[in-house]
């Protein structure tokens, strides 16, 4: 009987390890992060691969400060934001992004607002950021809504290949 109990425990432990291991990796999705109020989704495309002119909601004449000024290492960083409880898209936020790389001693950072864009008929927030080297970049977002006090902060990590 003891052997049966032992086998039973081993089987249960094995199943639990298999499932918990899968969920650990699944929870580490780099393109989706949550804050208290929002679900935020990240998308990154190298600027030199962009074929269409992104359409800005606020009709800025110089897209994200001017495409002609971009370096060959610029990346188009875009996000979508959804309310966590209602699951509805947030269309009226102000988003500030800080992209940084390196160590504490040699840290380089660039801060810009993300501008409202229409892509595939849906609103997103985007801007170009220079990412000159391969490796890990930290993308810190501050999200403000005019009808709320304070802001939500969300951090993504992006491993540039």
């Amino acid at each position, binding site marked *: 009987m003891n052997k049966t109990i032992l086998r039973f425990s081993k089987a249960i432990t094995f*199943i639990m390890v298999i499932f918990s291991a899968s969920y650990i990796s*699944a929870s580490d999705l780099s393109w989706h992060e949550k804050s208290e109020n929002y679900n935020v*989704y990240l998308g990154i*495309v190298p600027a030199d691969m962009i074929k269409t002119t992104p359409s800005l909601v606020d009709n800025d004449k110089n897209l994200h400060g001017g495409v002609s000024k971009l370096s060959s290492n610029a990346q188009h960083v875009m*996000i979508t934001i959804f309310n966590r409880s209602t699951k509805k898209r947030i269309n009226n936020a102000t988003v500030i992004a800080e992209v940084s790389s390196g160590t504490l001693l040699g840290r380089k950072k660039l801060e810009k607002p993300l501008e409202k864009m229409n892509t595939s008929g849906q609103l997103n927030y985007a801007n170009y950021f220079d990412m000159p080297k391969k490796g890990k970049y930290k993308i810190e977002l501050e999200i403000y809504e005019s009808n709320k006090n304070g802001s939500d902060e969300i951090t993504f990590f992006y491993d540039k290949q």
Partner: protein
Amino acid sequence: MEKLKGLLFLMAILVPVVSYSASDTSHDMDKMLLEMESHWKQVIAEKDLSKRQSMMKDHANMMMDIRAINKDIPEAKRTESHHSSGNVLEIHHMMMETMTK
């Protein structure tokens, strides 16, 4: 007695697995999303245009597979993963659109 022990042992393994598979496909969804994200990194790292375009077609197929699973989940069984997968697919669609003339 031995048969009963064997049956109990089998049930201990099968019951959680069967009930898990029947009630929750979010594990599959998360795995497919992880594969899609990994594939996207390969797409944007590819410098050869024709190879990249071919990879983008593969990426679109991966998205369609996930969408097909997602739309078949009844509302009552939809988990957070099922809801967020739609938003992940949307931003991948947006990225693909910016790369297409």
